[in-house]
């Protein structure tokens, strides 16, 4: 059981790191701000989700699990809002020039 959980942790965190890497590559390589923003928020949210999943078996109790999930939820909320705000600012700037 514990070996299976360890395996889950390793696989999920590695997958999460892959998505973080993909998001960062997108941020650096994509040409326009909107697609960079898209790559960053989407890939990073998924990456963080996978890392949270990987850490769940190590959270030590239900309270720890809930805290980790709450962290993920808050980051989702914040990054979705910030992406909206930045995209809105880009659009306003684009239409004014």
């Amino acid at each position, binding site marked *: 059981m514990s070996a299976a959980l360890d395996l889950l942790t390793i696989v999920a965190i590695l997958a999460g790191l892959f998505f973080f890497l993909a998001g960062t590559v997108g941020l650096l390589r994509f040409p326009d701000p909107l697609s960079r923003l898209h790559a960053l928020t989407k890939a990073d949210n998924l990456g963080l989700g996978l890392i949270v999943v990987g850490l769940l078996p190590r959270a030590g109790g239900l309270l720890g699990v809930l805290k980790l999930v709450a962290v993920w939820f*808050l980051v989702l*909320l*914040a990054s*979705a*809002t910030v992406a909206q*705000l930045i995209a*809105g600012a880009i659009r306003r700037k684009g239409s004014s020039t």
Partner: protein
Amino acid sequence: MTVVNALDIGLAALVLALAAWTVAAREAFAAAVGYVAYGLLLSLVWVRLFAVDVALTEAAIGSGVTGVLLIRAAARLRGATPALDEPLAPPLRFLAGVLCAMVAGALAATVLLMPDPAPTLAPQAVGNLPSTGLGNAVTAVLISYRAFDTMLEKVVLVLAVVGVWSLAPDACWGGSPGAPRPARPEAALAFLAQVLPPLGIVVGIHIFWVGADEPGGAFQGGAILAAMWMITMMAGLTEAPPVSSTRLRLVLVSGPAVFLAIGLAGVVIAGGFLAYPSGSAKPLILFIEAFMTLTIAATLPMLVAGPPEQPPQP
């Protein structure tokens, strides 16, 4: 070199690179954004130094609230004429660089030469914990052993608010800080400002409460409560209260006032200024901390909002 060591070196390199970016960036706005990222990474360094209380404070106040303040200032100063500011002449710049490198080198040498392990007060701090009833030695230092510092620091916060308010134009004295509430708030920000505060208030109070025994406390919890108030103001859901508001002023001074009152009562009851009677130290400490949390939650947004900019409502 172990993996952990490599991660430490990577973290230090990132922190230094962001710090260099903050100094070198052309735009003040970009520099301020870099400073926020820098502060967040620096709080990871604090975690690595096993100073979780400091890491929370650095993330919340050093990076978060300071970041909001600096980004807003940079945004407002965008229209300023940069032509008036000449950079230092290259030879002087070089000289300054050499001198700063020497300062950094001397400091680094001092750090490396200093005794390791360093002299420490940890045994005394831990040894006297039972008399305070607390489990978190950092909170004990803040509210009990070095209570005087913390009380004066609250006074500094209130004085800073007085200083900021005193910069108000005459016509605006007694009015509200910041721009008037927009007719139509930005939808996404308004949504966040409605969903987040219920959660944030719970988290803030939780962090204040667990601060007695675990990392956390009045500063960190108060900063989160302050962030919740700031986000509702930024989203335009609520306006900053007028600076003439008695309630606001009472909240601002409540922390230091309660601290001082209990400190003075200690002279009579426990035989010393800021001494707590044995047995009831913990409830008193939590009582003081509750008011400190309130003061911090009100002071930080007021400092970010700046001096009043609207004429007072009749």
